[in-house]
């Protein structure tokens, strides 16, 4: 058995009375690729911060080799070979690659003056560690996300790292870039450097890691070898719940389509799109980035406008030239990036929910009826089980899944006919994802027409009653879920 690089024993930590970690132990061996998984709020990041010395634990031990600590400082963590690559990579976008790489060492050596020659040498040595080729004088801000990450990795390796902790490293990477990253991690393994991979994406956990630890509510839910883990167990350990992936069967389908799209084209984005949606159906639209799926969705909500073709609502042709007209025709849209496009984060959860129905809640003079407003908010918080102690809290205090529910509530508080959702569960953890799917199904049963645009294939397969696949702006196939599986969909997408 290889020697352990890091061992933490029975770590406890609480913040303002909330027990974030309730006695967690973790061991990482030299050269091991270990995955730390858990939903938001499970204590993953608290544990990472304790290992890297940012937080001091209330109880427990941190052991590096044969050195036992009850608390450590960030510097001690670094001296013991711990390096953390944060999600934002801790880089300086305005400075050159060279400076980004050399600063840590120059500062560690307490240098006061800048010596570009020495900094260049440090930077070149750092890049050589993973054979990364990049212009030393380029500004880091102009590089791709993947390159920024590689720079962060190079920098981490410079200080004799023995364990590199990567916090959700694949979030902003393309599939190809993820593969390149995994190769580097395997390469580090050969050099005896261990990697602790923080993630809640299960395919990654399976692909790269040898062992895993899953946290749930501040406790260790499971640990073991990845080879012994399967999808179902993983989900169970993460959430403590069992989910059945029952395919969606529409029960309450209207006779006439609520929305039909005929020969819709928009130059350069999509061409000749035809489909219809009945009340009670969930229609899935998938396709690669740039296939026209997003533009089509935006056209249905009046943000972009089609050049030719017709959109009919309840059989009546309508002209959707702005979001306002789309809303008046009963169409709602949940955008891709809910944080910047769909919510007022600093404002209260309640205000976010009722923002689109202020007219309904105010008197003729435009004064808001407070009791009515309160009642309305309470109703939606209950209906969509938004987890908050108080709807007056700012929206930014909610987790991703709960924020997405607020966006839904905002729309549902109007009487909609069609709801278009673009990437409804992106960046949302498994439990909330399941809940959002259940909400959508329930809404469909109540007679709403729903369109989900997503590249999460399992999501489309289990939740939609009809699937459209887009390729290069055209609909390359229209299938039902029982005709389709992952391979079939991939074939039509490529």
């Amino acid at each position, binding site marked *: 058995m290889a020697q352990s690089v890091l061992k933490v024993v029975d770590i406890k930590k609480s913040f303002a009375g909330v027990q974030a970690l309730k006695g967690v132990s973790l061991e990482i061996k030299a050269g091991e690729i270990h995955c730390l998984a858990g939903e938001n709020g499970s204590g993953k990041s608290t544990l990472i911060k304790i290992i890297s010395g940012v937080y001091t634990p209330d109880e427990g031990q941190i052991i590096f080799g044969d050195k036992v600590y009850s608390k450590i400082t960030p510097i001690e963590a670094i001296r013991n070979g711990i390096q953390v690559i944060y999600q934002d990579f*801790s880089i300086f976008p*305005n*400075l050159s690659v060279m400076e980004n790489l050399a*600063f840590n060492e*120059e*500062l560690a050596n307490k240098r006061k003056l*800048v010596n570009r020659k020495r900094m260049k040498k440090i930077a070149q040595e750092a890049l050589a560690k993973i054979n990364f080729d990049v212009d030393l004088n380029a500004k880091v801000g102009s590089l791709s996300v993947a390159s920024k990450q590689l720079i962060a990795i190079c920098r981490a390796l410079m200080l004799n790292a023995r364990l590199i902790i990567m916090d959700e490293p694949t979030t902003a990477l393309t599939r190809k870039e993820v593969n390149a990253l995994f190769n580097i991690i395997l390469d580090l393994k050969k050099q005896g450097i261990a990697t602790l991979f923080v993630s809640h994406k299960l395919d990654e956990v399976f692909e790269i890691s040898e062992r895993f630890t899953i946290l749930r509510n501040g406790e260790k839910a499971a640990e073991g070898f990845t080879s012994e883990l399967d999808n179902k167990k993983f989900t169970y350990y993460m959430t403590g719940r069992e989910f059945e992936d029952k395919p969606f069967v529409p029960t309450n389908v209207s006779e006439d389509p609520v929305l039909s799209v005929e020969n819709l084209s928009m130059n350069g984005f999509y061409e000749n799109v035809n489909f219809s949606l009945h009340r009670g159906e969930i229609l899935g639209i998938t396709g690669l980035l740039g296939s026209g799926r997003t533009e089509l969705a935006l056209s249905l909500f009046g943000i972009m406008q089609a050049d030719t073709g017709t959109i009919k609502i309840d059989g009546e042709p309508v002209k959707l030239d702005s979001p306002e007209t789309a809303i008046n025709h009963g169409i709602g849209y949940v955008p*891709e990036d809910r944080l910047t496009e769909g919510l007022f984060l600093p404002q209260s959860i309640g205000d976010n929910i009722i923002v689109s129905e202020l007219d309904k809640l105010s008197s003729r003079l435009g004064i808001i009826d407070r009791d009515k407003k309160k009642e309305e908010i309470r109703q939606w918080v209950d209906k969509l089980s938004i987890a908050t102690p108080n709807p007056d809290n700012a929206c930014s205090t909610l987790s991703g899944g709960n924020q997405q529910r607020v966006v839904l509530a905002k729309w549902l508080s109007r009487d909609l006919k069609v709801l278009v959702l673009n990437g409804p569960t*992106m960046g949302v953890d498994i439990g909330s994802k399941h809940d959002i799917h259940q909400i959508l199904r329930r809404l469909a049963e109540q007679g709403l027409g729903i369109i989900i645009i997503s590249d999460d294939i399992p999501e489309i397969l289990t939740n939609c009653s009809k699937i459209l696949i887009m390729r290069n702006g055209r609909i390359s196939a229209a299938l039902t879920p029982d005709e389709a599986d992952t391979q079939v969909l991939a074939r039509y997408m490529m």
Partner: protein
Amino acid sequence: MNRIMKNLMQRNEFYISIAIVALSIAIQLRSGQFFTSNNIVDLLSALIVPGLFALGAFMVIVSGGVDVSFPALASLSMYATTRILVDTNYQGGILLPIVMSLCFGAILGAVNGVLIATFKLPPLIVTLGTSSVFKGIMQGVLNAVQITVIPPGMSSFGTAALFIATNPQSGLTSRMPVAFLALVIVLLIVYFVLQHTMYGRGLYAIGGNEVSAYRAGFNVWLIKFLLYVGVGMISSLAGLIRVCMMTQAHPTNMLGMEMMVIAGVVLGGTAITGGSGTLTGCMLGTILLVMVENSLILLGVPTFWQGFFLGVFIIVGMGISALQVSRAIKARGALTRRVQQ
């Protein structure tokens, strides 16, 4: 070659230089007086005070902050220095006044520094506040009035000339003040600090990403604190030079310069969001605004139009940085689209 051109086209310095050249040619064509030795000397002499202010404002903006208190700080410090020296009937040279005003500047700057670095308050709000406080101390506590006779050491420094330029046609003469050396020296010091010390790179680093700077091992508190102390000293020096050159202390006539100075810095390509900008750009932007202030009269433009053109340049300058911000947001949008892949 193409790449060099392209690189050049992306830089604000390039456009500012074009604007400066265009404006000078326009003035020359109109008046025939621009490219005369005495006009150039007049311009350089008018550049001293705004130039010093701009160096301070530049460093603060690079670090991701913004300082609007420097005219009030300079006014208070120069007024206190002059008042004390006049009341004690000081007859000595310029050294003591300079040391005194640097001390006042350091103390007042430290107030900004403590509020911003220690209490982590937003620099704009802090300096808006201290600006009012400094003005209040000067006008309320010190009962500031115009001081028409300043100590002889100060006035002789202010009127001492490096050389005198004479216009052969009109016979007008202009003195190049010794104080111009102060601008050159401070410029060299700031250049050295920003480019060749870890402190200076730390300013850029903080302006780029403060959290990363902390994690990399920069002493963020010390860097910020010293920054505001240093800027206080530079601004005070500018205030003192202004008094010496005018040979009288007017408590309020520097107030309001902050907009013009910050506009010059931003026009020169310094990102208002922090982290990027060059000293060349900062100085060019300031030169352009000083030219507008001083040379429109040569164009035959009535003085009240000066305010108009200054305003236009400020809007253009701020417009440039607003554009930068919206570009940055677009770039972030591109990032979120990448996430989808």
